[in-house]
């Protein structure tokens, strides 16, 4: 008897998660339609007008959506996405700067190594995204996912302390990525 409410709640949560994805999709499409409408009303379909339309549509949705009495994590996800994109761009720029510096050095002072990172990511999409992003960020290149999908082996340019590097990737990249995807 005691566990029954819990069970119902967990079922409810699964259903919620499914609906949530749908609502996010709907809101995103609405936002796109508003931006197209704006561009058409402005009389010119260009990058500038579409972007303006999207931003204005987003603001309108933020202001109006709560009045429908529903809630959605669309707005939160959008902010997370923007933050992730900025973080990723920053890492990408740092990594190319570092590669440029290394290439210019007379004698490369690198201490490369292959280390394994325990994975929290589970689905194919999560692992693929993580491996891709690791390859694009400073000093790391993904090599192989272990057959049991628990470990990702990466090749790093600077292994001063393997544990530090592991923590850096888990706390920085993986946490942010999973936050966005889940």
């Amino acid at each position, binding site marked *: 008897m005691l566990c029954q409410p819990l069970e119902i709640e967990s079922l409810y949560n699964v259903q919620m998660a499914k609906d949530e994805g749908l609502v996010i999709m709907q809101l995103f499409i609405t936002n796109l339609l508003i931006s197209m409408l704006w561009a058409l009303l402005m009389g010119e379909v*260009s990058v500038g007008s579409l972007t303006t339309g999207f931003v204005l549509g987003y603001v309108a949705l933020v202001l109006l959506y709560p009045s429908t009495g529903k809630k959605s994590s669309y707005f939160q996800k959008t902010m997370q996405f923007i933050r992730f994109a900025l973080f990723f761009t920053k890492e990408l720029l740092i990594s190319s700067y570092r590669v*440029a510096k*290394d290439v210019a050095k007379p004698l490369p002072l690198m201490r490369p190594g292959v*280390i394994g990172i325990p994975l929290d990511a589970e689905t194919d999409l999560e692992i693929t995204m993580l*491996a891709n992003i690791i390859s694009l960020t400073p000093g790391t*290149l993904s090599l192989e996912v272990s057959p049991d999908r628990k470990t990702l082996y990466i*090749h790093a340019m600077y292994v001063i302390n393997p544990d530090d590097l592991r923590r850096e990737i888990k706390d920085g990249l993986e946490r942010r990525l999973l936050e966005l995807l889940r």
Partner: protein
Amino acid sequence: MIREIGTSIFLILGGMLTLVAAVGVLRMPDLFLRMHAATKAGTVGVSSITIGVMIHFGTITVTSRGVLVIAFFLLTAPVAAHMIARAAYHSGVSLWLLTRIDEWKTHGEIGKEEE
């Protein structure tokens, strides 16, 4: 005027980064480090050149294609690097002399998975 300056900055930056990637591929001591140089500097270099082109034309057709070019480059370049590095490791390409640690070898199950 501003558009021309923007275009030039991105084109020059992209050209320089692509050069860095090429020099890196030549200079780095082993295959894995070469892949580092090729993926990162190469991706940013090509993206930067594409952004320069997008700024120069500024029309919706060019920009939408430019965005797609960058998106697909960001998706495919790391996959290619990953596959090359993985294949190299499996076929026994040796790591550089100064490589400090190889956890794949010590903890991994390379012998097992090849059956």
